[in-house]
């Protein structure tokens, strides 16, 4: 029997999870929106982010939270380099292509292998003094670390939304998302914006990976379960907007958290997939298809 406090605990856990899920999915959305590339290497970038935080913590004793914010500029440059090196050579398309999928997938494999060679295949984790500390509010318990991670995720997403809404770069990105041809006619430099968008997406993947490294142990294969989740989230959220991602993250986090009541823990990884199929069958345009007009108008 579930008490009100249990329910509230689960709800808070779901909300915390949603924050992390949102942070890890926005990067994918930006890249998909601008370039129509399903970035399978996203998981690899997240894994690299986790090791980035780990290295900073081990070598310079830098707190992983700070490390996560340091990951933003580093991975931004990394992503721009990858775009310059590989992605821009793909045939242009306004639809996802097999070649883009396979290219990013191949790159993910390379990243994994580099990580195996560098760090080996043992699980690693980052333990700080506040890893296990909790905040008690009467019957409700909140992990301090999760709260901090949640806050960082939400803040970063808010800043991203601000960039997309206010800056010239953001306007170009949104123009490319809405109509790439018209955007180019009005003078948006497609290549430059794509490069920056890819950098931005990578930066957020690295950031999310660094945040996740504070909560979970990781190995070079880290990120695969999150890849499917990220995709579920951006599908739920309509593929191309930050509020959509936040919404999708919340839906998935709530479903996953409360499914603990009904589904054995061993089968948890199957839930995001089941949700994806159910949603796509019921709403072929994603949940956001129902609400897209609202957001477009807003």
């Amino acid at each position, binding site marked *: 029997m579930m008490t009100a406090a249990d329910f509230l605990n689960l709800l808070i856990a779901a909300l915390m999870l949603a924050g992390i899920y949102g942070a890890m999915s926005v990067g994918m959305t930006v890249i998909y929106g601008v370039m129509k590339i399903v970035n399978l290497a996203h998981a690899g970038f997240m894994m690299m982010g986790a090791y980035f935080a780990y290295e900073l913590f081990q070598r310079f004793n830098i707190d992983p939270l700070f490390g996560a914010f340091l990951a933003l500029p580093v991975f931004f440059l990394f992503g721009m380099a990858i775009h310059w090196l590989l992605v821009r050579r793909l*045939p242009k398309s306004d639809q996802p292509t097999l070649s883009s999928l396979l290219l990013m997938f191949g790159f993910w494999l*390379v990243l994994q*292998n580099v990580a195996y060679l560098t760090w080996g295949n043992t699980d690693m984790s980052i333990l700080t003094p506040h890893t296990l500390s909790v905040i008690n509010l009467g019957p409700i318990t909140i992990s301090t670390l999760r709260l901090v991670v949640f806050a960082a995720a939400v803040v970063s997403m808010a800043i991203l939304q601000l960039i997309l809404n206010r800056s010239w770069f953001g306007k170009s990105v949104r123009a490319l998302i809405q109509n790439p041809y018209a955007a180019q006619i009005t003078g948006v430099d497609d290549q430059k914006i794509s490069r920056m968008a890819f950098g931005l997406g990578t930066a957020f993947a690295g950031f999310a990976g660094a945040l996740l490294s504070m909560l979970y142990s990781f190995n070079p294969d880290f990120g695969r379960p999150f890849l499917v989740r990220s995709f579920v989230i951006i599908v739920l959220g309509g593929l191309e907007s930050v509020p959509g991602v936040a919404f999708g993250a919340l839906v998935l986090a709530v479903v996953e958290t409360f499914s603990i009541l009904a589904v054995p823990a061993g089968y948890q990884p199957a839930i995001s997939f089941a949700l994806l199929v159910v949603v796509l069958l019921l709403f072929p345009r994603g949940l956001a298809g129902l609400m897209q007009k609202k957001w477009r108008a807003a």
Partner: protein
Amino acid sequence: MKTGTPASGIRFSISSVLPWLLLVALIFLPSAGLGTNLIRLFFLTLVWIVTSVAWNLVGGFAGQVSFGFAVFYGVGAYTGALLMNQGVSPYAAMAGAAAMASIASLIVGAPTFRLRGPYFVIATIGVNEAVRVLMSNLAITGGASGLRLREHGPYRQVEHYYTALGAAAIAIAISAVIARSRFGLALRAIRQDEDAAADVGVNAYVCKLYVHAIAAALTGMAGAIFARYAAYINPQGVFAFNTSISILLMPVIGGIGTIWGPVLGGVVFGAIEEQLVANFPNIHLLLYGGLLMLIVLVEPDGLVGLFHRIVRRRGSDSRSKGIDKVLWGRSRLEGREL
């Protein structure tokens, strides 16, 4: 190309005789006194070729890229293993494995084929993960610790080899028949434009389910053949995501959407897997990833496309571009309505 008619006539006859010559050569191969290690390499390559050709039916002909073929490989391996442990004859067990994999393909395909393009691709990754989790937890499969086969009678490597050879021949024959049939034409139509295919009367959903079931049956059979040879299987092996990658990589190496591309890819992959990976086990992902990126960026039509490009150097690579356009989504020009 006006003078090319007689030459192409000869080439046609060569290309129709070549597969039979190859088959005869492979049949007499074990009597040439090869070492067990080489026979093993041939056996594994043939098993890979079966899966590669099967994947190509769905991914190449119908254009539905699946990252989830390990599911059918694993289902086939486990069904075959469980049946053989019950005392069923190996070949009946392989047929059972094929049937079971087909059923699994319908269960997987019924929801996922409602999805298109990247949705379908990601869903297949999800299926693969979900099934692997399921299989590691189920009691009937022996859980994560794996399953050992108890086959009685002497171990004869040559018999395994001939089984794999027969399976590969069946797979290639099916692939060739489909490529020339109305059904194959429907699949090509689906690959090029699903809506347009539906407009001319192709039931895309049912066609995709059919071809998926055929491909799954072949893959399941390959799984059973492998399980019988290996005598031990576990979920982390046969259901592994890496198995799905391998199955997908071979047709891409060889040239997807062609009959012989996947075969060629299987041969190359078998050699890489056995030689390079065995010698440098810690960089195999790097090799696969690098190969994948290289093919995508340099020669999207794989070895077959490269071959065509070399043969038709004079007429530039117009044919290669044509395949490129059809296979790899909208090409540079198409999709730009403005």
